[in-house]
């Protein structure tokens, strides 16, 4: 079986110049991600997690080394070409949801397609509806973010990440603002998406969350210190069922 490599990262280095000091955030990181993997990137603060995430999301370029996203070398691309790549190949999910305020769920989900001139108004709406239904928010099209709970907002954000049919969903601490139950719900959704073939890269610092993934890359001081397949993968829906029923609900 030929494995399709979504990400190829080879000896990537990223340095920042702060005044007269050079800060080395990444000191040579190498790993590949295959299609259909559910990868978590773990590490404490200062480990280079955020820098790596920005790079994976094509928001930043490596100082040295090669980063291939779906067989495209990032290094040679202009600012506008990077934007185009983010638009078509990556679906972002942020810790703070980053939905547009006073804008309906449907319009929020349509947003990435707005920046794709190949997609007309009709197709845009149809795809946004399908994406919202995929995250089980089929009855919340006209709700604005402040009318939705945190978990629902994050599901709108996931729908927004899915709508452009990206090669990879890139989540940055996507459960960081949520309680355990809602986190498990989100992880369950992520696992479902992964089951259906989506490649997911999930940045987190919670080992609890990492247990739901198929593989974990551990970063420390700008280097990969551990890269392990997760043999004892937990099912988020089972974990959810195992939670005691809380009086809060």
């Amino acid at each position, binding site marked *: 079986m030929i494995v399709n490599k979504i990400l190829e990262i080879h000896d990537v280095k990223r340095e920042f110049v702060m005044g007269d000091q050079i800060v080395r955030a990444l000191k040579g990181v190498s790993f590949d991600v295959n299609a259909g993997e559910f990868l978590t990137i773990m590490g404490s603060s200062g480990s280079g997690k955020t820098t790596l995430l920005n790079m994976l999301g094509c928001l930043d370029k490596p100082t040295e080394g090669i980063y291939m996203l779906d067989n495209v070398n990032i290094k040679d691309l202009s600012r506008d070409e990077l*934007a185009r790549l983010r638009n078509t190949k990556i679906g972002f999910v942020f810790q703070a949801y980053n939905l547009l305020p006073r804008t309906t769920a449907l319009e929020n989900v349509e*947003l*990435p397609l707005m920046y794709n001139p190949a997609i007309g108004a009709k197709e845009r709406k149809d795809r946004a509806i399908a994406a919202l239904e995929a995250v089980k928010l089929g009855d919340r099209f006209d709700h604005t973010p402040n009318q939705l709970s945190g978990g629902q907002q994050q599901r709108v954000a996931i729908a927004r990440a899915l709508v452009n049919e990206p090669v990879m969903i890139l989540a940055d601490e996507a459960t960081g603002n949520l309680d355990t139950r809602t986190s498990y719900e989100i992880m369950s959704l992520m696992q479902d998406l992964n089951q259906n073939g989506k490649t997911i890269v999930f940045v987190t610092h919670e080992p609890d969350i990492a247990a739901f993934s198929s593989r974990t890359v551990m970063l420390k001081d700008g280097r990969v210190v551990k890269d392990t397949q997760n043999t004892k993968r937990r099912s988020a829906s089972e974990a959810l069922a195992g939670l005691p029923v809380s009086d809060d609900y």
Partner: protein
Amino acid sequence: MKIINLIRLAIKALQRNKLRALLTMLGIIIGVASVITMMSIGEGSKQSINASLASMGSNMITIMPYSNEPGGARMMGSSLKTLTSKDIDALKAGAVDIAEISPLVNSSGQSINGANNWPTSIQGVSPEYLDIRKLVVQDGIIFSDQDVRSSAKVCLLGKTVVDNLFPNGDDPIGKIIRFGKIPFQVIGTLVPKGTSNFGQDQDDIIIAPYTTVQKRITSSIYFNQVYASATSEDASDAAVAEINTILRASHRLREGQDNDFQVRTQAELMTMMNSTSSMMTALLTAVASISLVIGGIGIMNIMYVSVTERTREIGLRMSIGARGIDILLQFLIEAVMISITGGIIGVLLGITAAIVVPSMLNWPTVISEFSIVISFLVCAITGIFFGYYPALKASKLDPIEALRYE
């Protein structure tokens, strides 16, 4: 992003902050409204001046006595004594560009009809005067050349004089009135002309043969003024040159000696009046334009605030695929929407003011399409000019920093 979507986005963003958008527009609204109002008032007064000057006869030429002698007491032009019937004869004989000519001798005094009296002025003229001044006989007839030769005591009355001497509505034709002590038979009345641009009642006159006025009233052989008409408006300048040559010869003025008379054409007067009103319009428009610039700075200010406020939104849009140009256009279109909406409101307000002003202040106004087009264009340019820098700033933001902006 497609332009139509960007426009929808801009409308939505403005709707979200209605009051703020309105306040931002206020500068533009006031600027545009005042430019249009000022320009329509200027244009209106210009047209009304032109119309009233034309009604006085657009190829009319006025000759007045004039002295520029240095030293000594200078006197009012009309009291100088240089123009006589000899000049009229010389002009009639020599000037080919003059169609008609009439002397004017005037005097003020009391007109009396039985128990009614009215202070007015009498103008001694020849029959041609009516043609030159575009005066029209309403009832009765104009006196003849024979009446002039015989110094007949006949006269025509302006409407104001008729109203005051015949308050009961009697027909004045054939009646004898007195001007001072001299009895005159009324042979005609004049069609009313109304108030002149200088606020003078043009109907408050009595017209009589100049010979009669000279002999019976002023007891002088001199004229206060001479009125002439050029054969056409274009011939005015040639006629003026002829008058100068003929009168200098008639007055035996030596080379280098100043004229003892002064020739004015209606065209000169028109230019003079118009230049005054054009300058006023230009000044008022300049003041109004300043408020357009201030309005533009207001837009720039609010757009900077908006960009800062929405830094996270910009970061998000960039992270999901917006290019710099998409962000630039988004904010630029928003700024242009503010300025153009302000412009539309301003134009409507300006037109309303131009319609209301005449009824309130009795100033004539004429709305010119030119002023509307110009102020609208200026609005759009203001929006682009002052919206560009905030929009450029937004488009240059680093998505990583913008996403983390608190």
